[in-house]
Structures are given as structure tokens and as C-alpha cells.
């Protein structure tokens, strides 16, 4: 085990972490501002990936594909909000869970109907494929490095949006007291649609970016959705800062655990059983992490009291 391998895996963990942040940011904003739990967020991730794969298939341009993923997911999100979600803000969480679960069924089966059950493939463009040499003698895939940079850039952009712009002030005010900002003349329902579409666009972009590494298929959003839930539970629901911290923590834990736990187990077990025991434990590691954090801080790292 060399330090190059360790550094590579840290970069992989960072890559998973920033993608999880793109998912978790939308979820946590929607919960923070509208008080809504949205299980269908993974469907928007899937919509983004499929839109990107379709557009890349027609035009051959990866950049257009990414644009399409943003636009399609934002449009799907806005539509979802206008038709269904806005009826749910005043309902209890059970109704929200069920209605958004119903949306998953509709979106998943609808996508299967449109595109079929076979996975689509989205190719990494030639100018982003191949390895790149990093200081310290590490060869790392250029595309993954690009993903990390895009994710970090979006994280910075999102913090600036929320901290510095008028719309960010309205979002924060909406979290604190929605009646008051409605009374101050902010069109609250337009703000809600906007926040929802923004979260959807981020999820769609994540879907497209990850879709080029993995395959694009129905149901691809759900494992990510659940990881994103773990992220925002760890970070504290409603906190963007918490989402970033949680995403990096989960990304690192999942990646490093999956690689190094089986190796660690070989120190005191025979190789075959060490591999399977290590893999089993690694698959549970982030949930154990979540349980441990909740024991110490029941409302997450950056969560207020709920």
C-alpha cells in the first residue's frame, strides 16, 4: 500500500463527496425553506442523466449535454413543484413521503417507458479523457478531476448566492419566517418554485456528470438519494454548510472504507474471509458513522434544535 494509492482514493472520496453535495444541497434547501421532505429528488438526478445521454447521442457535444441536464432537471423540478409539491407544504410529513414516493414510481416507470430498460451510455469527451499528472507523481483521470473542480466551484457559487445576493437573502429569510417575508411583498410561491428548480438543476447536473462514469439507467437516483439523506442527517437538515461537511465525510468514509477495510482485515484474518467481511462492514460504515454522530448530536453537526 503506497501513499499514491492513498492519495488517489482520497481524490475519489472527494469526487463522490462533491457529487453528493450537489444532491444534498437541493434536498436541504427544499427542507430548510419549504419544510418539505422530497423523496423524488433522486428522480431529478435520473432525469438529468437521461437528458444528457439523449442530447449527447443527438449532437455529440458533452457541453450541450450538460446544459440539457440542467435545463431538463430544472424544468422537471419546476413542473413537479407547480403541479404536486406546492399542495404538500402544509401537509404532514407522511403525506409528503407518500406523494413524493408516488412521483418516483411515475418518473421511474415513465422513463422506462420512454427509454427502455437497458442502460444508456454517456461517453466522456475526448478532451477530458485520459489521465493527468498531478504533483507528487500521481496519475489521476482528468474527467474525475474536472468533476471535483466543477463540484467545488458550484459549492462556492452556492455559498455566494446565499450569502451575497438578493435571492439568497430571500431564501434565508424564507427559512427563518415565511409569513413575514410574504408580508414584506416577496412573491413566496415564485421563490419556492425557484428554490425547487435550483435544487433540481443541481441534482440533474450531478446525474449527468456521474452518468458519464457509470451507466445511465432507471433507478440510478435512488442509491444516491439515500446517501444524500445520510449526508443531510449528518450535516443537520437545512444547513448548506452541514451538507458540504456531511457530503465530504460520507464520500471519504465510503470510498476509503471500501478500499482499505478489506486490506485491514487481512492483518488478522485469512484473505478470502477478510475480503468478504471487510466488504460487508464497509457497506455499512457510513450508516454506523451516522448512528455515532446522532448519538452525540441528535440534530446533526450544524443542525439547530428541531
Amino acid at each position, binding site marked *: 500500500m503506497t501513499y499514491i494509492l492513498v492519495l488517489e482514493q482520497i481524490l475519489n472520496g472527494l469526487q463522490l463527496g462533491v457529487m453528493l453535495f450537489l444532491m444534498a444541497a437541493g434536498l436541504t434547501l427544499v427542507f430548510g425553506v419549504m419544510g418539505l421532505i422530497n423523496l423524488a429528488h433522486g428522480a431529478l438526478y435520473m432525469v438529468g442523466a437521461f437528458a444528457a445521454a439523449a442530447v449527447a447521442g443527438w449532437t455529440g457535444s458533452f457541453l450541450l449535454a450538460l446544459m440539457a441536464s440542467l435545463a431538463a432537471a430544472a424544468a422537471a423540478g419546476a413542473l413537479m413543484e407547480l403541479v404536486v409539491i406546492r399542495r404538500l407544504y402544509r401537509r404532514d410529513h407522511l403525506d409528503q413521503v407518500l406523494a413524493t414516493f408516488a412521483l418516483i414510481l411515475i418518473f421511474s416507470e415513465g422513463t422506462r417507458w420512454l427509454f427502455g430498460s437497458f442502460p444508456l451510455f454517456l461517453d466522456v469527451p475526448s478532451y477530458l479523457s485520459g489521465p493527468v499528472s498531478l504533483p507528487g507523481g500521481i496519475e489521476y483521470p482528468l474527467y474525475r478531476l474536472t468533476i471535483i473542480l466543477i463540484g467545488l466551484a458550484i459549492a462556492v457559487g452556492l455559498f455566494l448566492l446565499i450569502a451575497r445576493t438578493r435571492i439568497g437573502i430571500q431564501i434565508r429569510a424564507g427559512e427563518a419566517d415565511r409569513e413575514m417575508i410574504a408580508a414584506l411583498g416577496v412573491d413566496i410561491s415564485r421563490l419556492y418554485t425557484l428554490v425547487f428548480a435550483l435544487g433540481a438543476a443541481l441534482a440533474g447536473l450531478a446525474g449527468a456528470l456521474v452518468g458519464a462514469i457509470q451507466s445511465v439507467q432507471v433507478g440510478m437516483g435512488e442509491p444516491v438519494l439515500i446517501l444524500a439523506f445520510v449526508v443531510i442527517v449528518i450535516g443537520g437538515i437545512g444547513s448548506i454548510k452541514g451538507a458540504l461537511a456531511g457530503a465530504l465525510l460520507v464520500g471519504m468514509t465510503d470510498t476509503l472504507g471500501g478500499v482499505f477495510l478489506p486490506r485491514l482485515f487481512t492483518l488478522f484474518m485469512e484473505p478470502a474471509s477478510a475480503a*468478504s467481511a471487510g466488504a460487508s462492514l464497509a457497506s455499512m460504515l457510513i450508516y454506523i458513522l451516522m448512528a455515532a454522530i446522532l448519538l452525540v448530536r441528535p440534530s446533526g453537526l450544524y443542525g439547530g434544535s428541531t
Partner: protein
Amino acid sequence: MIPTRESFLNWAMIAALLIVPLAAWSLDEPFIITLATKAAILALAGVGLNIALGLGGLISLGHAAFFGIGGYAMGILAAHAQNYEPLFEWPFLFEGSNQMPLIWLVAIVCSACAALVIGALSLRTSGVYFIMITLAFGQMLYYFAISWSAYGGEDGLSIWVRNDFPGLNTLDPIQFFAIAYVILCLALFFAARLARAPFGLALAAARQNADRVEAVGLTPFTLRLTAFVISGAITGLAGALFADLNRFVSPTMLSWHTSGEIMIFVILGGVGRLYGPVVGAALYILLEHLLGGISDYWQIFLGVLLLLIVLFARGGLIGALAGREKAHG
């Protein structure tokens, strides 16, 4: 007690669930008997969830964990028995089992223990955190089952012959249906008694106003945890029966889609209604069978129906037919 429209509906439902397979039996239609058995078993899982959800107000999106643990209890015990490989040799020799009563006992105990651990951790939180944490623990077991290669991993575990019940031929569909039906009726009876018992009343009170319950000297946490354990145990029993019905158990039983489906049974029928899960599971099986015959994408229709019920008919089917009065709570 004055018979209400709802109690009439309940009796009609439970009678229909008995009459349909009996009619199918006399017409020699084993497939319909199997569908009815599936409905009875899924209803049992829903009755379990309804104790936590309807009575306790605990929105658990992780009940597939208990359903799957019940299923794996059946799979593991029966696999060891059929392969003649002892499950463990210390402190005594145990070769697994193909006796249903023992399998059920193990399923109940294991899922109750899992519910105790998951509940004790999850109930430290409430609201949306509780939903996400139960979901996450369910997924944890799902991924564990996938990576657990000793018992089939992703492929699951098949059993060649259905397990035995003393005095019955379980391979005969109508006899296996009878087992599932009797267990469902017992569970319904138990749930009805529980709802009226001091424990059930205290639990419902804790759902409505936890502070007042605490002020009269009861602990909401203990009440909820007990309800969660009972709920998990019943769902686990349903899981063991479901695995026996299919003679197959796989990680799918643990996936969060299963949790969502069990919740759909409860909601289609009506939350907090004692017979809601029976109506919901029967309706689900009916829809799956009818719509599934029309289109491979029948879950779109299920999704739309569920959406309409949540948005516009919040009492579920029983609520629509019997008006707004509730069975309990």
C-alpha cells in the same frame, strides 16, 4: 357496540378475503389462491407497520428491514436444514429447521431485536430525521445482505420445498392460505385489543400530545419504542411467511421500495384504520394483477392513484366508503 359502516366494511373485507380463495379452490384455480395468500401476508406486514404508523404516529420508512429479517430467518434456517449443514454446533448442535412454528419464533425474535436497536437509536430524533434514519438503517441492512455472500448475496437464497407445519400439507395452496389467513386474523385481533388497552391509549395520547403524556408520568420514548418493537416483530413474521410463499428470499425484500410498498398498503386502505392494511393489500394485489395484465408499466398508474389519494382522499379507501370516523385514535 353499535355496528358502524366501517365495521360492516371490515367484516365484508375479511369475509371476502376468505370467500374468494375458497371459491377459487372449488373451481380449481390455484393461482387465485396464491394471490389471496400474498394479499393476506402483505396485509399482515401492513398491520405490523400500522401499529407504529397509525397508532404511534411513527413514520417508519425502514420496515422492509424487519420484513427482510423475517425472510432471511426463514431462508437461513431452511437452507441449513435442507443442506444438512449445522447452523452452529456450540453450545448445542442446531441443524437449522424446516418447521414453520420454530421459524416464525426465530423471525419474530430476530426482527424484534433489530427493531429494538434501530428504534432505540432512531427514536432519539423525531419528525423528518426519524423518517430518514429509519430509511437509512433499512438500506444499511439491504447493502449488508447484498455483500453477505455466505447466504446468496445479491442472488438471494432459494428453498426447494416449502417448510412444514404439523398436521398440514403446506404445499397445498389452500392449506397454506389457511395458515396465513389465521395468522392475519390473530394479528388483527391483537392489534384491536392493543389499541383499546391502556398501552394503546397511552401510545395514541403520546402521538397527539407528547408533553401531556409526559406530564402525567408516562415516558413517550418507552411507549414508542415498545410499539416499534411490536410493529417490527409482526412485520418480521409476515416476512417469514412471504419468503415461504415464494420459497425464495433476496435483498429485494430489504430494499426501501418494499418499505414504501408496505406503507402504500396502509395508506390505500386508510391510516390508523385497523383493517386499512387488509383493504390496501387486497387492492394492491388486485391492481398489480389487473393493470399488470394491461401494461408492463402499471406502476405509473399506481403512482398516479397514490398521488390522487394523498392529495384528495386522505382517509384512503375506507375513509371514502365509510366516512371520516376512525377505528382508533
